[in-house]
Each structure stands twice: as structure tokens, then as C-alpha cells.
């Protein structure tokens, strides 16, 4: 009798399901505004943390469809309105995913602007063509209908959720987790025992791709992991 080999795919089941959530934001207009780079610096020091969040993390979500050339509102304003190109480049290089607290992110941005003004006397007081308006974000977390206990369900959920959900789990998450990671990677690592996939997900570059690109890339990585299991 000829022996036959039956290959059975392993289906890993998570002990903790992944619950896809999303978030909705309403923009609140702040009291601070800046007409010069020096006033921007003063505003950066005085504004509430919600404002720093709005103009960095949140603005990425508002402009999630842009593949290149948009990073945060401070860089955009200093580039397009103030024409302080070197400052804009430095501000644009700030990757929000390196930060697990708004406090640290604020310190980094303040240092860049402060150093620039010190090195470029006169730049701080040049009037901008349009003011910068500090705003903040009020957030409501929304549950979705999607939940995953295995990779197939995870991929199904990820295919169907909104980009707001992807932003919530992939970008905003680090402020909640206080970790240089994201909800997807944590779940893939801890529940699916896929540390390489988790790292690959975390290394997706959000500044050269859209949130739809992020979705596609994660789905590719998950599909690859399913093949390998």
C-alpha cells in the first residue's frame, strides 16, 4: 500500500481575540495662533498636548491618501507659508512612531524650532503669509463588528475596516501602549507567535505610503505567514 502524506495547515487560535476598534475625531479650534516662527515656538510650548497630537498623529489620518510630501502640520506650514525650507525639512523628518508620549514629541519639535531660530537670527520674526492656527482633537473610540481569533479572521477584518481603524491600531496605538509598537504587531507576536511578521508590520513606512498601502502590506505579510504555517 502506497503511503500518502497529508499536509494539514496549522490554524493557530488566539487566546485573546483581536477586537478591531476605530476612532472618530472632532477638531476643536484653539486659542493660540502664530504669525511667525517665533510665535510658533511659543505656541508649541504653551498649547495643550491635544494640539500636538492633532497636528502630528491626527493630521496623518486626515491626509492618509497622500503618498509623499506630507508629514505634519508644522512642517507643512513652515514650508508652504514661511518658506523656511531647512526648518520644514527637519520638522518633516520627525517620525511620530518614534514617540510613545506627546510630551517627548513636543520636546523634540520645540528643540528643532528653537535650534533653528538660534542658528538663523531673523528667521523667527519674519511675518508669515498666513497664521498657523493651533487646533486640537476630541476623540471618541468606536467598536466595529470585526473580531479575529486567527489569521484568516484577522485578514478578513483588516480587509473590511475603515482607514480610521487602521490609524487607530497602527499609529495612535503607541500612545496608549507606551511602546514602540502597534496593536497589530503586538497581537501577531503574542497571540499568533509570529515575531518576524510583527516586526515587519512595525517597520512599514507610513511616510512614503498611504494607509491603504499599510492595509495592503499587512495583508501581504499575513498571507505570507499563512502560507508558511
Amino acid at each position: 500500500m502506497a503511503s500518502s502524506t497529508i499536509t494539514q495547515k496549522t490554524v493557530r487560535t488566539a487566546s485573546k481575540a483581536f477586537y478591531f476598534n476605530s476612532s472618530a475625531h472632532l477638531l476643536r479650534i484653539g486659542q493660540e495662533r502664530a504669525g511667525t516662527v517665533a510665535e510658533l515656538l511659543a505656541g508649541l510650548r504653551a498649547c495643550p498636548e491635544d494640539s500636538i497630537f492633532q497636528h502630528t498623529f491626527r493630521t496623518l489620518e486626515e491626509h492618509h491618501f497622500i503618498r509623499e510630501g506630507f508629514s505634519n502640520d508644522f512642517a507643512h506650514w513652515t514650508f508652504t507659508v514661511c518658506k523656511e525650507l531647512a526648518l520644514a525639512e527637519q520638522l518633516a523628518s520627525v517620525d511620530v512612531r518614534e514617540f510613545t508620549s506627546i510630551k517627548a514629541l513636543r520636546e523634540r519639535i520645540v528643540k528643532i524650532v528653537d535650534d533653528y531660530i538660534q542658528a538663523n537670527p531673523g528667521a523667527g520674526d519674519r511675518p508669515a503669509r498666513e497664521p498657523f492656527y493651533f487646533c486640537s482633537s476630541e476623540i471618541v473610540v468606536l467598536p466595529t463588528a470585526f473580531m479575529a481569533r486567527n489569521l484568516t479572521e484577522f485578514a478578513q477584518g483588516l480587509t473590511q475596516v475603515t482607514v480610521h481603524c487602521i490609524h487607530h491600531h497602527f499609529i495612535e496605538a503607541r500612545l496608549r501602549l507606551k511602546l514602540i509598537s502597534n496593536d497589530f504587531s503586538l497581537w501577531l507576536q503574542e497571540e499568533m507567535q509570529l515575531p518576524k511578521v510583527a516586526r515587519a508590520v512595525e517597520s512599514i513606512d507610513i511616510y512614503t505610503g498611504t494607509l491603504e498601502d499599510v492595509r495592503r502590506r499587512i495583508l501581504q505579510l499575513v498571507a505570507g505567514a499563512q502560507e508558511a504555517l
Partner: protein
Amino acid sequence: MNKKLMELENTGALQADNIVGEPALQPAPKIEASAAPAPAFPGQERRKKPRISETPPAPAPPPKLDDYERIIGKAAIDEIRFLASSLHGKTVKMVNSTAVGGGVAEMLNRLVPLLGEVEVPTKWDVITGGNDFFELTKAFHNALHGGSYHLTKEARETFLRYNEQNQQRMSFEEDLVVIHDPQPAGLVSARGGNPNARWVWRCHIDLSNPNPEVWGFLRPMVERYNAAVFSSPSFARPSAIPQYLIYPCIDPLSEKNKDLDDSVIQRVCDDFGIDRSRPIVTQISRFDRLKDPIGVVQAYKLAKQYVDCQLVLAGGGASDDPEGDIVLQEVRAAAQDDPDIILLNLPPWCALEVNALQRASTLVVQKSLREGFGLTVTEALWKGKPTIAGAVGGIPTQVIHKLTGALVHSVEGCAYQIRYLLTHPEFAKQLGKNGREHVKENFLMTSNLRRWLLLFKILSGTAG
């Protein structure tokens, strides 16, 4: 003889085929293409007899929330329904100054039924007043935009008297009351009747540089509200109450924005003598100096030295604006006898034609010198059109330079962008694609509904 310089006069009886330089003909009946004799060149016959209705068509029933699913997806619709679910049992009242005409009424016509559909029952009331009141509030409107105005004691009393009369006529038992614009702002004195109610002042106009007398009069009323809502951070005033941003929006399912079959676009272009085989640059706006139609003609002429194109300037509403006729004459003079400049003065119910013109365009221009939010820009972006626009009002919120369109500050800048985008179609296409996504994310009716629900949750303490 310039045969393409055409105007459809919006003057009571529509002079639908008044071709500049030729005697005006009588209003033409609708003529089917098949009934027309063979044209000497494509579109000639129908251009003379465009099928524009002489009366407004009956309004279409408002869409249902699920109708938007094919545009924003099921998950986004589910998020809206979830947001609304915690507001079930809450009631809302919206108050403005007109039931028909104008952007606010157009928006409420869509928003109010959608709020009802997600079980947040919303009542829409319209204030009444005599001519003296509406003349006064028009003067207020201009003054709040920065115009000079002396506020008399009589004017104050007239404003307060009509607000008081409307307050007596209305009831305010709802949990959330939204008052739109300055005209009914004084109704806030009724808020004592329901101390738990939350009142919102929704200001659709730009208050960045208001007449101090008029703003000084209105400000104490505004600060009795729980919150104010503006269309752009630059439109707001420093204030003691929380101020939120809710962008104006367009309805992707409306006559002006819905998808069109190419045959409809072709028919409209044929009717108006527009050649779709050549680049089309279009500005849709009323003939108003602040929209700088002459600057657009100048930019087109500069660009035309390098690239072939036609210019379509289409607008309407000039009949109730005495200056509109003068501006139209000035534009006509600036256009001279260029056969590739097509002037269309359309009646306000030509939404379908405007939609088709925008979709037929290679580029859309909105070279305003001053602007509110600029919803014509939103419409163009939604149609995926590379858009060149003046960096004024709410336009920079929509047109992010070189990412979702091109911002310009001069005739020369506008001309350069026309040349550049017509000769770099791939870049232009990417701008159009980004622009559409920007509108989808931020400026559609569904985003507007989502933001109102969020505001209601925040104000009613159910935001969690």
C-alpha cells in the same frame, strides 16, 4: 462672427440661445438631437438650442444613508450608525433663515433627514421677518465680512424685536439646538426654558475681520451658547466658548455631483459648443469681481501662447445681482472675439449641466480673490479634476499645493499652472486622484453627519 461666445441669460424668461454678436432669439423649446438638421460642425445646431429647462425641476427625494455605502463603504456607514446609537432618545432642532436657496438650506435638506434616519429626530425651523429685518441682516452679513457699517439703535432694536417674535413663535424643548448664522442668533435668550439643553451657534461666514460694532453687538449673544462651529479655523474669533470645526460639504449623490454617463457629458458639451477633443479649462462661479473672471481670461490668454485649450466660464445668479451684469459685460469685453472662450450664464437649476461641464473639463480653475469655503472647488476635486485655485478663504484647506491641486496668487501664477498641468498629465492626474480622496475623507455629506454626531455626543456628555 464669434459663435462660441454664448450666454444663457437668466432673466425671467430664459433667453436660452442669446449668442453674443447676433440678435437674441426667442426662448427655444427643448429640441431633441434627432430633430435638429445635420450640423455644419459637431454641436453647432444643438449649441444654439441648449436643452435647459425654463423652470426648476422637482427636487429629488433625499438619499438614504445606505445609498452612500457604495461611496464610503459599509464599515464607514456602520461607524456613523454606532456614533448615533448613543444619542438615541436625544432630539435636535436646527434653525436658519431660509428654507430654500443658499448653501445652508441645501445642506440642511440633506442632513436633517439623515439625522432622523439614524434615530436622532431633528426638527428644522425657519425664522420669519419683514423686509426691514432681512435688509438689516444682509447689512450685518456684509459688515461681518469686514464692510463698513454704522450700527444704529434702531437697527439693534429691529434685530432684537424680530428675534423675540420668532422666539415666541417657536418652542425649544429639544436636547440640542443649533442656530445657523447671525440672523437667528438672538434666539439664544430662549435657552432658559430648558436648562439641560445644549445650544450651538453654527457660523457659516468668515469672521476673521468683522466690523467691530456689529460683532460687538452679536458677541454677547454668541457667548451664551455652549459652543460655536466654524468652517475654517481662520474664520473664527477668539472666544470664551469652545469652538469646533465642521467643514462644509457636498452631497456626492446630488444632481451636481452624482456620477454621469458619458453620453450626458457629451450631450451637454455638444449643446454648448465645447470640443471634447481639445483641452478644456473651466471656472464655475457667478460673474462677480471677487471670483476674478477677468483674471481667468487673462491667465488663459497667457497660457494659450504655449498650449492649446478652450476656456469655459460658467455661472449664474446674475439676475439678482446688479453688479453681475456689469461684470459679465467686462468679461465679454476681455474675451474679445476669441472663439475658444465660452461664456455660459446659467440659471441656478442647471446643476446637471454644471456637473457635466466639470466632468468634461481637463482642468478646473477657481481663481477667487476672496472666498468663503469654496464649495465649487470641493465639487471639482470630488470629480477628480486637477484644480488651480486662489489661496484665499477655505481653499487652502482643500487645495494643498502640489498635493491635491495648485494654489495661485496671481494671473501669471494661474497661467503657469494651466501650462504646467496641461503638459504634465500624469502629475495632473495624481493631483486629481489625491483631491478626490481628500474630499472623500473630509468634505462629503457623510463626514459632515459624522462630525455633527460627534459634536452632539461631546456636548451631551455621552462621548465616554
